[in-house]
């Protein structure tokens, strides 16, 4: 304020009042997000957790609102365990592949690309996120279908036999890419890759180039520098990215519904139970599974020192 004697408007007095009471300002700023997170988001989670402890009466088919572990016992049937294991295995495979693909790209973007090329890389990584998820998944269906581009290209390159060999693999193979787990994996990988690239880029940006030079200066070959300096320092970024790719794969129900086998993933099972079957407790219990898996995942990551570099 230029002149202290000037008559202050109501807005000025409000500003000054808030400036002098930083706690009040903090409360006003944090109120809405806390209300949202605390009541709407956490409330929904608690309601979900509560639902999972109810159960469906075998004869009437009605939900019994009494606390019980019956639904969780039912979760342990072979069919349900198969769903959980296949979904978790898919999430792990997608996460691993995303990390392996994202790291070199992120390293190139941070260490070697010019500003212009880097901007283009960012655009390339982000661009798919601007268009509808459904459109992209359906276009992958066209790409991977038996009459699609991949089959056509493989035949033109006289590599039809290789494609057949891949599809003949047990468990993950199938009649065509669009109706096999390989297809589901490819589409998951495509859709979630940006969520791995961006945190790894952010982590690598924070590694000063002089550390790589220092490692080389002390006698380390590039491979040793990668394992001992680059990867440990970028690890929090990889873990952050893996939290995205892992949890997003665990919860998705659209991609495996469009591309892949008829065996359901967790998300699809949730939809079936709460929609068609009307078994809300079972749907809730199945939803708790990814939450539990993620909790275990984060605890293990923490034990492995993933967050020490933060």
């Amino acid at each position, binding site marked *: 304020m230029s002149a202290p004697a000037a008559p202050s408007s109501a807005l000025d007095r409000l500003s000054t009042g808030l400036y002098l009471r930083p706690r009040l300002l903090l409360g006003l700023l944090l109120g809405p997000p806390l209300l949202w997170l605390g009541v709407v988001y956490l409330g929904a989670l608690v309601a979900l957790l509560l639902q999972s402890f109810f159960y469906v009466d075998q004869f009437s088919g009605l939900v019994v609102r009494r606390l019980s572990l019956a639904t969780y016992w039912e979760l342990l049937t072979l069919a349900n365990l198969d769903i959980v294991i296949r979904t978790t295995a898919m999430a792990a495979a997608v996460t691993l592949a995303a990390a392996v693909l994202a790291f070199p790209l992120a390293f190139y973007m941070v260490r070697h690309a010019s500003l212009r090329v880097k901007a283009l890389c960012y655009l390339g990584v982000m661009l798919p996120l601007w268009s509808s998820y459904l459109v992209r998944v359906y276009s992958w269906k066209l790409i991977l279908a038996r009459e699609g581009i991949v089959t056509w290209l493989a035949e033109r390159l006289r590599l039809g036999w290789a494609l057949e060999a891949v599809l003949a693999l047990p468990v993950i193979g199938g009649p065509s890419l669009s109706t096999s787990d390989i297809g589901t994996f490819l589409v998951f990988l495509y859709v979630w890759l940006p969520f791995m690239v961006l945190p790894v880029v952010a982590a690598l940006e924070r590694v000063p180039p002089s550390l790589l*030079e220092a490692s080389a200066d002390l*006698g380390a070959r590039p491979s040793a520098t990668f394992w001992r300096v680059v990867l440990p*320092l970028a690890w929090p970024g990889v873990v952050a990215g893996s939290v995205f790719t892992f949890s997003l794969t665990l919860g998705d129900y659209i991609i495996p519904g469009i591309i892949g086998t008829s065996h359901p993933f967790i998300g699809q099972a949730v939809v079936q139970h709460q929609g068609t079957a009307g078994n809300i407790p079972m749907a809730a219990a199945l939803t708790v599974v990814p939450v539990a898996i993620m909790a275990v995942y984060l605890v293990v990551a923490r034990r492995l020192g993933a967050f020490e*570099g933060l």
Partner: protein
Amino acid sequence: MTHHASPAGGSPPPAGALSGVPAVRFAGVGRAFGEVRALDGVSFEIEEGQFFALLGPSGSGKTTCLRLIAGFEQPDTGQVLIRGEDMKGVPPYDRDVNTVFQDYALFPHMTVARNVEYGLMIRRVPPPERRRRAEEALALVKLAGLGARKPGQLSGGQRQRVALARALINRPRVLLLDEPLGALDLKLREQMQVELKALQRQVGITFVYVTHDQGEALSMSDRLAVLNHGLVEQIGSPDEIYERPATAFVAGFVGVSNVVEADLARRLTGTPQPFTLRPEKIRLADPASGPGDAREPTAAGVIESTLYLGAATRYTVALDGGGQLLVVRQNAGDPGRPWTAGQRVRLGWARQHQQPLG
């Protein structure tokens, strides 16, 4: 500036020094980054066991010289030789040199001990020996007992010492230091200058020290090269560089100097030979006190301004007939001193202090 030991009486010859072969030799080295010529045909030699400083303003090419020795850069033209061996195509990890980086470049995810051991671990030295040597190296830089800390828990001065220990533990042929004291405050910097110099004598390793601080270069090095715009302006011992600057740039960059151009030189000395003259070599006298030594050059003028420096005062004297000279006199407590602005003075100096310029 404090007195420094004469370079000749300094470092003992290091063990295993190959007689005659310089530790580092630059032979016509050129390096350009796009349009910018960082080095433009630079040649010099660094003797085994010497404390050698590369002095210059930013952009002079001194850090490029260091990076060429370390192997982070390759020369476009010419050769960089370490102990007589051409280093062309040899990567940093195959060179027997180590670097203390300007930002220290300590690995933040490792403890101090693991940082110091890093070079030995890479070379697969067994853990017990590696631990013992790391403790020795930390003791050498006066950080014994801090091995379990992370670099983030140390002060700037301590990090600097860790970087030093991490480099020295490998017993390199040449230790490269890139403005290692630049981030420290003045008191700590002066203390580290003394310690670094003592450490270099103790370990006998060739030190190549990059700095833009002329005081640091003069007080620490046995020899130094002054660089400017990618060229070596002068190489010599600190007193040679200070007392007999070869170029106007060296005279102006190393300490403060008067550069006397041809016109003024003719008026002052009778010949148009340009020269430099250090301000502390010029005496001031009261014009009323009678003529000075007739064989020495003299001039008359008026004190235009004074700059009080504590131990000394710097005077700008406007000469009769144009031109000005800087004069520095000690504040030794003589009556009527320091001089004040506006006073008329007579200046005199010994002809031998005039350093002719080419």
